[in-house]
């Protein structure tokens, strides 16, 4: 029997990123941590005292918690080769539900159930009805935003006391937002890297058909990514409602696309199957440091637009992909 020649193995760090499956999928994360490090150094040079002050870092944690949560959720959807534009509206919806005139034990589960339903509808539409994710979630986003405005036409209402407590103040010297971030990130990393669901998600994101033929419930896995994303959005909504101690039917609108930015800047490819929550940590921090650094440096809002836009384009240009397009 003439055996096949052994597969050539190239040595070196760079080859590792091509040949080792784990590092191949995480190469974007490595890059974005490098970008983050560069930015932190830059900030240290420009606004050293204020940025690295305890107050500021603690503020930063509070500010970034919602973006962390939605971006992590979005990461799941992107890994499954989907796209969820509706998270912003889901945040608004959960904020609206959480400030309804209902008992806390009713409305808190209700908010998450509503979010899960939106996720299921998104997943169902994309997976079983085969509507393009951008189109599907654009449509549901519009519908969900409408519902949020019906439930809560103007900002206000009373946030559940529990959420206000959980989202404000400090615990062991660290701000509440920090714990939300740690909890969300740990859960996401565990799901992706610590469970069988994670491998199956990577498989499904690359090629749902092949994954299915390998005996995996690919459709269910893809639908689940939308549910996770919606639930994370609801969690972000809960945090925001607690932090702002009130509801707002528009509170999530900016976070929809920002969540994609957070995940994409972290090296998760929009084509699916490459990237992950570890990179998203760096991606979100890049956005946060950028916003915060520009504010601290006293850059005028006009110039902030230009600087932020350029940084975005620059950072994302580092993640060169196989094919151009979406």
């Amino acid at each position, binding site marked *: 029997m003439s055996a096949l020649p052994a597969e050539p193995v190239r040595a070196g760090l760079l080859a590792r990123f091509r040949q080792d499956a784990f590092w191949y999928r995480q190469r974007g994360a490595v890059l974005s941590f490098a970008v983050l490090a560069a930015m932190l150094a830059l900030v240290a040079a420009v606004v050293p005292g204020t940025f690295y002050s305890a107050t500021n870092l603690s503020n930063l944690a509070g500010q970034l918690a919602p973006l962390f949560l939605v971006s992590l959720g979005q990461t799941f959807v992107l890994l499954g080769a989907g796209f969820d534009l509706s998270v912003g509206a889901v945040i608004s919806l959960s904020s609206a539900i959480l400030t309804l005139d209902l008992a806390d034990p009713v409305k808190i589960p209700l908010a998450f159930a509503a979010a899960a339903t939106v996720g299921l509808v998104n997943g169902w*539409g994309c997976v079983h*009805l*085969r*509507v*393009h994710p*951008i*189109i*599907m979630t*654009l*449509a*549901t*986003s*519009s*519908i*969900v*935003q*409408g*519902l*949020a*405005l*019906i439930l809560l*036409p103007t900002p206000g209402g009373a946030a559940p006391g529990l959420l206000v407590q959980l989202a404000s103040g400090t615990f062991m010297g660290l701000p509440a937002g920090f714990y939300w971030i740690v909890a969300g990130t740990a859960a996401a990393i565990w799901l992706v890297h610590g469970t069988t669901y994670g491998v199956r998600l990577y498989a499904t994101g690359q090629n749902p058909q092949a994954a299915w033929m390998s005996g995996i419930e690919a459709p269910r896995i893809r639908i689940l990514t939308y549910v996770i994303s919606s639930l994370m959005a609801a969690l972000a909504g809960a945090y925001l409602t607690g932090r702002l101690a009130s509801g707002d039917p528009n509170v999530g609108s900016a976070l929809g*696309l920002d969540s*994609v*930015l957070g995940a*994409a*800047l972290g090296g998760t*490819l*929009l084509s699916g199957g490459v990237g992950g929550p570890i990179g998203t940590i760096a991606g979100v921090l890049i956005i946060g440091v950028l916003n915060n650094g520009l504010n601290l440096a006293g850059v005028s*809002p*006009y*110039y*902030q*637009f*230009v*600087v*932020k*836009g*350029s940084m*975005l*384009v620059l950072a*994302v*240009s580092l*993640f*060169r*992909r*196989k*094919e*151009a*397009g*979406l």
Partner: protein
Amino acid sequence: MKRILTALPPALWGLAAVCVFAAFTQPQFLSLPFLMILLRQAAPLGIVALGQTFVVANRSLDLSVGATIAFVNLIVAHAMWNGYPPALVIAIALSAGLVIGLVNGVLVTVLRASAVVVTLGTAAIITGIGFIYSGGAPGNAMPDIIKWLGRGRIGMVPVSGLVWAAFGIVAFVLLRRLTLGRYIFAAGDNPSAATYSGIPVNTTLLISHVLSGLFAASGGLLLSGLVGVGSLNLGADYILSSIAAVILGGAVFGGGAGGAIGTMLGTALLVMVLNLLTVFGVDQPGKLIVQGLVIAVAAVIYQQGRRGG
């Protein structure tokens, strides 16, 4: 026969349904003056959506159209152009759109960065430059010809409607009669196969983005003419509306479907539905819900049709 039926854009059926509905409930809606007004309302969005069609057919996306419209508006309204020939002002505005499209195109093709992120980034940059350029205080030195384009009429017919039709013809020819269109649909369907057939895939995508920028600038010009003054944040709602119109017109990302006519019908459907909702006193949330439902239903029907055919 079935092939032909499923090839028709979903917007056509939607439009027919809406017209029948209007005929029974709001007959004045279908009166000529109102239709002319609808035409004028639809024209700027229609042109932007035509531009969006190129990128969507090419499996990309342009989220910077809103910022482009606002930027064009700031340019043409700026006092700096007092005394210059209007043609120059228009040329400069259109060149701005062209440059924005070019930048998007280069970033998307050469750096192969995600179009979603890139065009969001360029949108932020353009918005910032617009603010800096106008000092936040938009002028109102708009040449009359632009106002005429935006609100003028020839007889009963709005000039902007005619401009839209002209752009429709241009887009139709580009997409369905010229090599470029074949390149776009081929590269949108399978970039790899397109490369191996000798199609200049990158150039094609670049041109799609340039066209989108150019069309967005043209739409912005009409909208500016309609508004008549500089106005910050003009056209922000055109980003999602233009995508919605393209989807209603039957184009999906790549896949060889959709085109100029579909997008024009899609725009008409969108504008018609929103007006009808206004007339029925449906409030903002209701409009959002109906708009979402219309998009979802169109996409589902279209997708089912494709699978069967």
